[in-house]
């Protein structure tokens, strides 16, 4: 602690060694306005982040709103055992993994490809325009995107189905069809976020030494080979780090997206941990059981994120946290 405090206007830092307590009190008094400044933020974290962390103990209770956390009966791991021995667990896990892996395979490479293409554009104004356009969907809410999807694809009035009919094809049931639900989510995700995802890759590409391209040109490499042999290897560490971090969040699928696109006909393939917790906890009032489900997801997520970060640090050196 002592090493951190610096010479400061009006401070007594130069005085002889003092006891730790005195030192702390002195710092508190000296920086009282600074503490006042951070107080609302610290209070926010304590109340809205740490109180709920303590609240997860109800996963080990039969929580009753009337008895509260202190009065409810403890049941140990009963809720977890009930959940793992339940058929729902398998379905939730399968759906979560399917949605996540699809996005990993189809969504993850697209921003990289898109930034390679953007990087090759010579006309700066055209490039700016394209960038502005592809970034934009990122700012739209999932309600808007789900809404537009429904407007375009609905069976009764969607323009896409009208087009299919006038082309002589049969109507296709996009919205309430189990077969294409995961793909539809992936396509929505690509449309919304692929452009936004280019920002970080473009920044990495901007840091590539131009001399490497000159050298590649001398060796007779065309533009595609330059991208393959110079640009891609140069941003490899960024790609690897982002990929690993993405793996750390493999249990997290977009809550709002699934929640909005879900309907009775597709619930079998659409239900993920988050929507399940919402349904059982908020709608049916099974607070303890759904907290246990949420806690399971959080613990797995925590382990994955820590592991992913360790791995990312090894590859990217700088690390993330």
């Amino acid at each position: 602690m002592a090493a951190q405090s610096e010479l400061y206007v009006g401070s007594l830092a130069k005085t002889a060694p003092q006891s730790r307590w005195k030192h702390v009190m002195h710092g508190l008094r000296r920086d009282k306005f600074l503490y006042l400044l951070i107080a609302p933020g610290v209070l926010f974290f304590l109340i809205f982040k740490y109180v709920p962390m303590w609240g997860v103990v109800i996963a080990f209770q039969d929580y009753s709103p009337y008895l509260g956390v202190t009065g409810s009966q403890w049941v140990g791991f009963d809720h977890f055992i009930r959940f793992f021995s339940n058929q729902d667990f398998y379905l939730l896990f399968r759906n979560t993994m399917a949605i996540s892996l699809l996005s990993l395979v189809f969504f993850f490479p697209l921003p990289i490809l898109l930034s390679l293409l953007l990087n090759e554009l010579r006309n700066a104004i055209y490039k700016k325009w394209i960038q502005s356009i592809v970034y934009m969907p990122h700012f739209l809410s999932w309600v808007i995107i789900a809404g537009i999807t429904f407007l375009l694809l609905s069976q009764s009035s969607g323009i896409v189905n009208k087009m299919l009919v006038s082309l002589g094809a049969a109507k296709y049931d996009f919205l309430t069809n189990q077969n294409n639900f995961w793909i539809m989510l992936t396509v929505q995700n690509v449309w919304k976020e692929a452009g936004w995802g280019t920002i970080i890759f473009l920044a990495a590409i901007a840091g590539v030494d131009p001399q490497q391209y000159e050298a590649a040109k001398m060796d007779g490499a065309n533009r595609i080979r330059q991208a393959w042999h110079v640009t891609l290897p140069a941003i490899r560490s960024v790609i690897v780090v982002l990929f690993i971090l993405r793996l750390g969040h493999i249990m997290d699928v977009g809550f709002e997206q699934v929640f909005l696109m879900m309907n009775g006909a597709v619930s079998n393939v659409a239900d993920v941990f988050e929507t399940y917790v919402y349904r059982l906890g908020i709608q049916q009032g099974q607070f303890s059981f759904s907290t246990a489900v949420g806690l399971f997801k959080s613990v797995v997520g925590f382990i994955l994120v820590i592991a992913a970060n360790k791995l990312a640090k090894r590859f990217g050196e700088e690390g993330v946290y």
Partner: protein
Amino acid sequence: MKRSIGDRIFDTANIIVLGIIAIITLFPLYYVFVVSFTDPAEYIQKQGYILFPEKWTLDSYKYLLSTSAFQSATMISGFLATVGTALSLVITAALAYGLSRKRLQGRRLIMLLILITLLFSPGLIPPYLLVRDLGLINSIWSLILPVLTSGWYVILMKSFFDSIPVELEESAIIDGSTDIGVFFRIVLPLSLPALAAFGLFYAVAYWNTFFSAVLYINDHAKWPLQLVLRNMLIDSSTQAGGSAAAEMMAEQNIPTETLKMAAVVIATLPILCVYPFLQKHFAKGVMLGSVKG
């Protein structure tokens, strides 16, 4: 050096491919925009095949904005986006600034506490019970207080403030200013680009508030825009028979489709309006932020 034929083919192909991607991105929005201004009769007659309406009309907008549900929802979302953003910015910046001053005792501990919140989430139910126990159900503050700031933004802003030289505040303090004065009169004005970037992110998040309102707001009269929109756009198209919103619209002569599209445009408009002004700032803000993957 002269460009080779291969180079020119590549460039042309690239321009075309990116152009197509831009069109794919833009087209759904364009279609929604155009239909929302289309005369209902024309929409029915052309069965929705409209790339450019023959007659522009504001009927759908006039009708939507005359409904009290839409008016109050827009007001609520507007309140969230302005008041919420202002509060969030000040609290995030104040915390980040304090934590960026190396002499502050306990900053390591506070940083650790913040970091932990990024790694572990208590899930959905405990925060819900907290908001309920605080008596915030059906209060607009349930949409602001629980999301006032986030660990990511605090850490990002702190790294921004780390670059502000300590000498600057020292000289202000010699002139008799307090740390709070330094923060509001020197640090915040110096940080306008960062505030613009984070302000945009906060404002968009508040304007798009949806799920926390699903959780905390049961009273339909207090719904923010996204919830009203969800009811208009989604419930009615999957569930046979349709929701109250659809029935309400069916009573009018305006086809529900043009109304729905007008609602999408209204909910998108504020974002599209601030977007061009803030775009130059946000790339900087995201550069730090996008690492979170």
